[in-house]
């Protein structure tokens, strides 16, 4: 078979294999040699030269994916890629076996549901080698994105999921509840739960637990109350169904509504510094003490 004696005549899969050996500066030079090499460089893996950078993908414009590379605390430059470009990048990267490297990957997802773009993003993230992935979800994840999340609860990397997830079935489908915490929101939300996956290295007391029924609250809280010290926060893990039931139970109780000028939304009930729950020795009721930064502000009996 014939092989062109010119670099730009090489089959794409061969030129890509050469390009992966090149540092970024050489790739940029190669890119403006001709259109064939421009395509070959674009098809090669993205090479992030500077540590402590992050990639932000924002799909606010349907069909477009905005990718930002930049430090967390500095203003970031951004590049907008069409979903097809990202898709081709994923495809070629898989064939070639190269990866994208970044310290932190941040994906922001708005309420515009576009399953195709969602799938491409999931594919893209799978091919990344990153220390931390932060995913902001509004609305329900598409099936592929859901699979991606489920596959990565094994802490392939530190991953945090933030924002509101409405799909309680999805929450229930997470198989490793010990790695997930449903945290109390720190500001008003209208619906849903905040879900965080626990990062590595958290201490035992911060390891969340999933409360699957209201009955379990008694036992778990008892264990916690024995370990609790002053000023120590406890994050509760609550199964969505149990939480829903709990919420319905509590909705009728006036004492769970705040009336101290900070608003009256139910969610704000959770905006305390910490919540201490103790069994009442004289009855089967639970006594719940709500603290803010200044100390105990409310006691509730269940």
């Amino acid at each position, binding site marked *: 078979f014939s092989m062109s004696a010119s670099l730009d005549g090489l089959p794409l899969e061969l030129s890509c294999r050469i390009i992966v050996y090149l540092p*970024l500066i*050489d790739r940029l030079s190669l890119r403006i040699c001709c*259109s064939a090499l421009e395509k070959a460089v674009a098809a090669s893996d993205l090479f992030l030269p500077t540590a402590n950078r992050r990639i932000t993908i924002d799909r606010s414009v349907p069909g477009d994916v905005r990718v930002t590379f930049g430090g967390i605390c500095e203003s970031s430059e951004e590049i907008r890629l069409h979903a097809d470009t990202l898709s081709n990048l994923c495809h070629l990267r898989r064939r070639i076996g190269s990866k994208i490297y970044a310290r932190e990957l941040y994906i922001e997802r708005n309420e515009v549901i576009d399953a195709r773009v969602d799938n491409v993003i999931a594919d893209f993230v799978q091919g990344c080698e990153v220390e931390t992935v932060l995913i902001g979800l509004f609305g329900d994840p598409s099936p592929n994105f859901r699979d991606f999340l489920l596959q990565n609860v094994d802490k392939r990397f530190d991953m945090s999921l933030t924002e509101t997830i409405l799909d309680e079935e999805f929450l229930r489908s997470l198989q490793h509840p010990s790695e997930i915490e449903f945290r109390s929101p720190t500001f008003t939300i209208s619906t849903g739960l905040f879900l965080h996956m626990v990062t590595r290295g958290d201490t035992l007391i911060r390891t969340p637990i999933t409360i699957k029924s209201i009955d379990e609250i008694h036992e778990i809280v008892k264990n916690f109350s024995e370990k609790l010290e002053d000023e120590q926060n406890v994050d509760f893990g609550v199964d969505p169904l149990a939480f829903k039931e709990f919420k319905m139970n509590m909705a009728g109780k006036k004492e769970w509504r705040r009336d101290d000028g900070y608003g009256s939304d139910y969610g704000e009930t959770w905006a305390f510094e910490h919540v201490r729950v103790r069994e009442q020795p004289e009855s089967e009721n639970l006594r719940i003490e709500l603290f803010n930064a200044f100390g105990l502000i409310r006691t509730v009996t269940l």
Partner: protein
Amino acid sequence: PNVKLVTSDNEEFVVDFRIAKMSVTVSRLMEAMNMSETDDASLLSNSIPLPNVTKAVMARVIEWCEKHKNDEPKEEKENDKRGRTTHVVSDWDKEFLKNDEFGRLCQLMGAANYLEIKGLFNDISQTIANMIHGKKSDEIAEMFNIHCDLTEAEKKEIRKKTAWCED
């Protein structure tokens, strides 16, 4: 035991079984043809056709394989911490490839790719990358006979697109 390899220009090469096995493609073909190291008859009665490799290129491939036939399987760390793939080309390999013009390197690379000889393929890829390294675009174009089909406006647009990754 020896294996017969036949190139596109009908040249027959008789090589050691171990050398033949260095090519994943040849290994698969031998397996498909029920040729085994312990069965001399199968080796004698069959030859492996390699229609994508010429006599001249095959000779170079065999020379490389002869040198590396006793190498331990290498566990290469394909990517360094900065995400760049790295491959160390040994002194012997550098010497082996240094006199090849780019056209011959491409032919050898194509053959290594077709025959699936990873070590040779990586050596050549890294060697070509070394030729590119440190050069400006016009120097690269001159060295590799590249006809630039991009307009100045297109170049400007590409530079703009890649500005994000320039420190």
